């Protein structure tokens, strides 16, 4: 363009000749086109799998390994014992302090069923290889990417292979492998394999060295493990932090969750492409057979009805159905009334186990848990569970009080902490730590009117107060918003179920708060009068020029105060007249006097324990347990225990 300026009279500059461009023929272009392996794709797009930054990468690696360990144990019917160990590794020179370290060695050990020798390399060093993708069954992992992606990340950042030790039983030998991924072919490359002596009779150990950062707080490994324990009280976890501290999380619930069953897909949840693929792969020879055997809830009668609506012969070969016919079939499925999918494929945590988890991990005064009946979105069954832990533990409350003895200035008030509730989210028992704002759970919490339940909440924000809100979605297929499984997508059905569960929790919390309020209000009433009587007497005395019989006036007023607030009546109201957490199912209430509700009982030997019914505290002075009396007259509501802390 510069050359044009030198010829001003030219009315319209002639377009400059286009610079010579490299042109390519289709043949040349074709030579450049080649297959991209999944591994290569994810090497370039590692943020899709949760390896965006070193801190998150550390968490993702731990998470994938722990999720796999738990899935394996549960499927094999073994109560999981998992050990997580993080070590800062020196990158040349002495090992730096954990907060400065950039390299970590992660070791996760479980007592699971172990892995057979031949499967070890592909499981840990081949992307999209696994047992979970092809079936509809509730599990933590879904795709078979996680652990191999973690290994690939290790390989990418430190060049070190993943080290696996696994043993399938006391009589079998332990196998040790070092594997890496061949990213071009997406195939495992075995660097080392041998039989070794291993102290564990059974289980798997995975170790890898990665580039990462260790930092406590939000979305840290520590938080992830703590939250995992809440939703998995049947897990025993040992965690060795990079600082070398060992944290033990004992098992609080001695029962494995019921094993979820595998189901066939429900016709409503299928897309056209998937339908076509299934029709290609089916073993059935007739359309009606295909429909009734490859889908859940399709009886031969329903299959016949679908065929009729679609205008297809029930005896047509499934493989021949494509084009317009397939589309008709798809539409016919959508318009036919089909029973909701079976829900025995789901394994919710359960109210009691959830309560145990919350109670163990979170200090509070009130706990409750709700498991909703199963529901369905897009043909996938799911269950929503919600829980609440509210308040501060009584001990903490007592400590906090004495320091507030200073007189308050204008504009200050007693409740000067504006702490917001914490929302912890789970999908298939796995904590979700990132992207809370994109998640259906957060949206439902915000949509709930917590003020109805006696909790403060400003517009468009989380409820305020010392409160932890727990929400779990269990489903054969959790609709995540991305591959890194960070947030649950907002389907109307899911939103509705979460809201219903939260409301139930809220109602119980409201009942608890009101009850506590009622008990204290009479006491406070009397207190108020006593407080103000002194002021009034002093003022009256000054008004009367200091010539008042103050003691007499005070005495008269105090007597009236006691009479009006009814001495005996107040005490009666303060007492809990023996009925415990009244009308609050699946709840625990902690008071300075003790604990009421379904409290898990810990027994040293770790055997499952039947809860023994014990009296709920009947009066504030219930220092003498009244076990005997209660045994003689069992209450209709069983399972209430009282435990001194």
């Amino acid at each position, binding site marked *: 363009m510069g050359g044009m300026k030198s010829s001003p009279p030219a009315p319209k500059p002639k377009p400059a000749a286009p610079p010579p461009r490299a042109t390519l023929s289709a043949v040349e272009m074709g030579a450049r086109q080649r297959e991209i392996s999944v591994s290569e794709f994810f090497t370039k797009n590692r943020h899709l799998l949760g390896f965006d930054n070193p801190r998150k990468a550390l968490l993702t690696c731990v998470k994938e390994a722990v999720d796999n360990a738990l899935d394996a144990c549960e499927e094999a019917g073994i109560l999981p014992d998992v050990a997580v160990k993080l070590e800062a590794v020196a990158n040349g020179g002495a090992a730096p302090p954990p907060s400065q370290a950039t390299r970590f060695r992660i070791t996760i050990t479980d007592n699971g069923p172990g892995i057979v020798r031949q499967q070890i390399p592909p499981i840990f060093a081949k992307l999209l290889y696994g047992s979970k993708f092809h079936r509809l069954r509730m599990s933590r992992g879904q795709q078979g990417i996680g652990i191999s992606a973690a290994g690939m990340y290790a390989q990418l950042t430190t060049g070190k292979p993943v080290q696996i030790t696994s043993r399938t039983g006391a009589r079998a030998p332990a196998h040790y492998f070092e594997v890496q991924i061949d990213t071009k072919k997406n195939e495992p490359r075995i660097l080392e394999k041998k039989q070794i002596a291993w102290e564990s009779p059974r289980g798997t150990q995975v170790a890898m060295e990665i580039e990462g950062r260790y930092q406590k707080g939000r979305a840290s490994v520590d938080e992830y493990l703590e939250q995992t324990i809440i939703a998995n009280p049947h897990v025993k976890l040992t965690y060795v932090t990079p600082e070398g501290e060992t944290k033990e999380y004992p098992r609080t619930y001695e029962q494995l969750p019921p094993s979820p069953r595998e189901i066939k897909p429900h016709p409503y949840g299928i897309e056209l492409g998937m339908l076509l693929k299934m029709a290609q792969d089916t073993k059935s020879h007739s359309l009606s057979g295909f429909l009734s055997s490859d889908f859940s809830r399709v009886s031969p009668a329903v299959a016949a009805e679908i065929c009729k609506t679609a205008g297809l012969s029930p005896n047509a070969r499934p493989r021949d159905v494509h084009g317009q016919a397939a589309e008709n079939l798809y539409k016919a499925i959508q318009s036919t009334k089909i029973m909701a999918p079976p829900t025995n494929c789901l394994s919710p945590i359960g109210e009691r186990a959830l309560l145990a988890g919350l109670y163990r991990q979170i200090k509070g005064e009130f706990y409750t848990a709700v498991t909703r009946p199963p529901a369905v979105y897009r043909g996938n069954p799911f269950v929503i569970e919600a829980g609440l832990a509210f308040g501060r533990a009584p001990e903490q409350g007592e400590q906090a009080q004495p320091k507030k003895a200073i007189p*308050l200035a*204008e504009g200050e008030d007693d409740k000067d902490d504006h702490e917001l509730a914490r929302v912890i989210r789970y999908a298939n028992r796995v904590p979700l730590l990132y992207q809370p704002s994109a998640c259906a759970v957060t949206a439902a919490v915000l949509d709930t009117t917590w003020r109805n339940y006696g909790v403060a909440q400003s517009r468009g924000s989380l409820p305020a107060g010392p409160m932890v809100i727990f929400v779990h979605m269990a489903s054969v297929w959790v609709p995540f918003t991305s591959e890194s499984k960070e947030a649950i997508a907002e389907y109307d059905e899911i939103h509705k179920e979460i809201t219903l569960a939260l409301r139930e929790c809220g109602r119980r919390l409201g009942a608890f708060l009101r009850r506590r309020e009622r008990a204290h209000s009479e006491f406070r009433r009397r207190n108020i009068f006593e407080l103000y009587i002194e002021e*009034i007497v002093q003022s009256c005395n000054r008004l009367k020029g200091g010539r008042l019989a103050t003691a007499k006036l005070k005495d008269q007023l105090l007597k009236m105060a006691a009479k009006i607030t009814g001495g005996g009546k107040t005490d009666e109201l303060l007492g809990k007249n023996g009925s415990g957490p009244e009308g609050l199912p699946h709840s625990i209430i902690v008071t300075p006097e003790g604990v009421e509700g379904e409290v898990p009982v810990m027994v040293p030997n770790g055997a499952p324990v039947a809860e023994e019914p014990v009296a709920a505290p009947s009066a504030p002075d219930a220092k003498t347990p009244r076990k005997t009396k209660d045994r003689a007259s069992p209450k209709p509501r069983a399972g209430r225990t009282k435990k001194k802390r």
Partner: protein
Amino acid sequence: MAKKPRKPTAVEKKLVGVADLVITAAEKRKDPTIAIPVRALSNVEFNERKGLIEMGKRKQARSFFNVGMAKKFMQTVLVADALSELQRANLTTSLREIYYRTKHTIKDSHENTLDTQDESDPIIEDLEVTLTALREELHVRAENAGSIVGPVVFVDDGDRVDCTRLGKGGYSVPSIVEPEYLQIARCTADFVLLVEKGTQWNRLSEDKFWRRYNCVLLTGNGQPPRGVRRLARRLHEEKGLPVYVLVDNDPWGYYIYSVIKQGSINLAFESQRMAIPKAKFIGLSSADPESYGLPRNVGIKLNDKDTARARELLGYTWFQKKPWQEEIKRMLASGLKYELDALANKDFQYLTKKYLPRKLKEKDWLD
């Protein structure tokens, strides 16, 4: 306060009555209760004959042994105590000082007797109406928020204040202007012009409007404080001066006028000493933009609050006269309000040189 023994004032006796009420009730094992006249629109009546708003008979009980009222009751006794202290010491004070005087943390607790001044102010008003004592009699003063200039001479604490010799700024009207504190030594003016806005009062004062039209110029900077209202009333009553009120053309201006004329709803019992039933509304009227050729673009659109307030005014008994109904409805119909300042659109001195002279000449005012 070891002065020579002096007789307690009537107000002081009334305040001690609060203590007596508590003592007597306690003696009889009864809940101490103070009956406080209700200060709300529902409990005022417009006395058409006198042209005043008067307080009705309804009272509300404030009892101590009632959780909702216990604290207020305690505060009432506390404020009564502080007020009687003022009486004994013969001091005057402000609302804010009363608040600070009565505020302390209650023994053995984290609770303050009062948290903000918003709690003590209504209690002072409660005591005013309950004891039928004026705020001035209770020795509580407000800010000096008013100014006066014109041919009038006051004696204030023995000083002669000649309001013709105070330049543009005038004399700052004290909040207590009862004859004991302020005497009117001489007044040769023909009328009083009470201006809502300080800015317009400044314009008139600077232009020496008062000299040419021989009047007293008074302003209260917005809703006139009690001192200004009381002083206007005294000039009206003692010197027989007619009072004209000049306010913005908006619902709040109308209400300011009505408070000057009939008294306020909140402190209706004071109307008898404050109100000037013969006061006239000289402007700005909703008819003025047309008759004085004010362009539409200097108007301001009425907002929802303005409209709602105007509708309320339409319902008040003392705005039922036909010209007033027309006045307010005309404003609503135009959807616009006008500030006094808008007159400057025509000329900086339009108010002094054209508007007021014509208004006075044409006797164009509302009653």
